[in-house]
């Protein structure tokens, strides 16, 4: 596999620019995604995985900004593009699915119109023709009775159906890269399974690469060929999925896997093992910080209280 990567992220820093020293929240993150590959980013809240994804398509909210690094998409640095060129690219070549389908869809427009918009904006079609393609797009994400559902509003659909509409919008223009940020966190397990299978099926059929962001190691394991683990704004481990789960190298990854109550991990009636406490693990080993840039996080939110310590 020595193809040229579709996305090549190099030394990305995201921070709040200020006078003199800027505070970096995402530090020195780099990875590559090959065409058609599914890459997973896993980490806890605040680890910077969503910020990394948003910076790829220039959707960071102020005052956050990319402070340095290169975002090479098909060899071109996206940071050098004008806002107009970026708008053309977004939705067409790189599409994104968000976590909460109710807030990501426009409540005042029918779902058919929201899908048709993609064809009108990116393909220059008329609304009539676009509306017809919207029906096909809905059918492709297995929404039952697509001819009727194109006229439905988001509030008339269930969470799983709304997420299917989001997928239809994202894949309408056959993008090269689909960014899915916690696409199933708001859904029930059985619905989650259907939606994930749908994403996997559509993307492998079209050769779309996927950047999947999740805090759920199970979701990542089932969907991705390679995984990056983020902790405190850094990418601490990036491996082939099988290797990562079979033989995690970084202590944080090991802690994360040990902290997860896994099916089939409990043996015998008395076998309620204690789960690994990552924070205790970190506090124990100060030497880790030199070896792995692995600093304990501070559990207390208010800096005034930090001296007091906490749980």
């Amino acid at each position, binding site marked *: 596999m020595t193809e040229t990567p579709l996305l090549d992220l190099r030394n990305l820093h995201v921070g709040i620019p200020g006078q003199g020293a800027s505070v970096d929240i995402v530090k020195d993150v780099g990875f590559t995604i090959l065409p058609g590959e599914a890459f997973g980013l896993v980490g806890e809240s605040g680890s910077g995985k969503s910020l990394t994804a948003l910076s790829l398509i220039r959707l960071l909210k102020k005052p956050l900004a990319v402070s340095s690094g290169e975002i090479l998409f098909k060899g071109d640095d996206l940071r050098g593009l004008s806002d107009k060129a970026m708008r053309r690219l977004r939705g067409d070549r790189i599409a994104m699915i968000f976590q909460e389908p109710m807030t990501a869809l426009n409540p005042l427009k029918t779902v058919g119109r929201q899908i048709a918009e993609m064809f009108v904006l990116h393909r220059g079609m008329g609304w009539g023709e676009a509306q017809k393609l919207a029906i096909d797009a809905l059918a492709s994400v297995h929404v039952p009775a697509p001819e009727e559902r194109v006229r439905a509003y988001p509030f008339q659909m269930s969470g799983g159906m709304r997420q299917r509409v989001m997928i239809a919008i994202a894949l309408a223009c056959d993008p090269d890269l689909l960014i899915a940020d916690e696409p199933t966190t708001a859904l029930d397990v059985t619905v989650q399974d259907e939606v994930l299978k749908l994403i996997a099926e559509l993307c492998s059929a079209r050769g779309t690469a996927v950047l999947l962001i999740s805090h759920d190691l199970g979701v990542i394991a*089932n969907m991705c060929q390679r995984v990056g683990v983020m902790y405190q704004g850094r990418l601490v481990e990036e491996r082939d999925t099988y290797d990562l789960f079979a033989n995690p190298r970084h202590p944080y990854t090991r802690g994360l896997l040990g902290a997860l109550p896994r099916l089939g991990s409990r043996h015998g009636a008395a076998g309620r093992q204690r789960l690994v406490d990552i924070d205790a693990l970190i506090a124990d080993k100060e030497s880790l910080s030199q070896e792995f840039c692995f600093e304990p996080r501070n559990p207390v939110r208010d800096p005034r209280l930090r001296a007091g310590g906490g749980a």
Partner: protein
Amino acid sequence: MRDGSPAPLLEIRDLHVHFPVGNNLLARNRRLLRAVSGVDLTLAEGECLSIVGESGCGKSTTALAVMGLQEPTSGDILFGGRSITGPDGPNRMERARIAQMVFQDPYASLNPRQTVHRSLAAPLRLHGTRTRSEIDDRVADILAKVGLLPEHANRFPHEFSGGQRQRIGIARALILDPRILMLDEPVSALDVSVRAQIINLLLDLQEDLSLSFVMISHDLGVVEHMSDRVAVMYFGQIVELGPWDAIFANPTHPYTRKLIATIPDPDTVLHPDRDRTAGAAPPPPAGYRFHPESVDRPDVYAVPAPSDLLEIGPGHFVRCAPG
């Protein structure tokens, strides 16, 4: 469904909760949404019973009925052999010492304008602890039990992280020394590492204080880790009930099998050939309320056809097809 052991701590008998739907002023032609239709459950002393199922299956309504926050349409709830529902049951003050609830969202379940001390002290005052020193001792004691420091009592909820807030939620539930904790998705709002800490804490507390847990969850990994027995609910009914190892090693009802098969499990990468649903089971007979091939969902307004729970192993019950 009793297993010969002494009277269970908590017993739910044929619980029904129906909600009238529709806004007909004369209350005619109203349809009844059958949120819970005929649930029988027992909880033994020191046991952790988990109720699993997807949203809308009636698991939270069952918990609310036990808490006295939702009046059952019919059925009986007994605590130590004594009915706690209806006009002859204990009043709210007594009920508060029977069972307390830990909620899913630690951000929403604490009063943002009250210090932790005030939130924790209010139930004590209501229940007759008057002297200041007694209250302070009890608050410090309970904070220590959940792994917080005495000085945390004077802080406000916004000053804590999610995991610490859930610890406060647990302290609030424990302050009156209840016998049962109802855990409604206690860790699903938390990050993996914090989740592990809270699960460890709950298991320690259960041992130290000989508590009984009823846990509601859709995270089967957590359920397997914590439970002694598991009840699977589907559209208001229990479809499978049994010891945790029987449920996970030998899931029998098609809905249980589907639930277990659909959870994303990191271990599938390492053992892609392992079928978690234990080999090829015979296809379920037609007429199950749940059928894996059918996309139709049961009608929540219809009276479910009578069906029985069939014992297929020691303490392991499965609802058979009606008729």
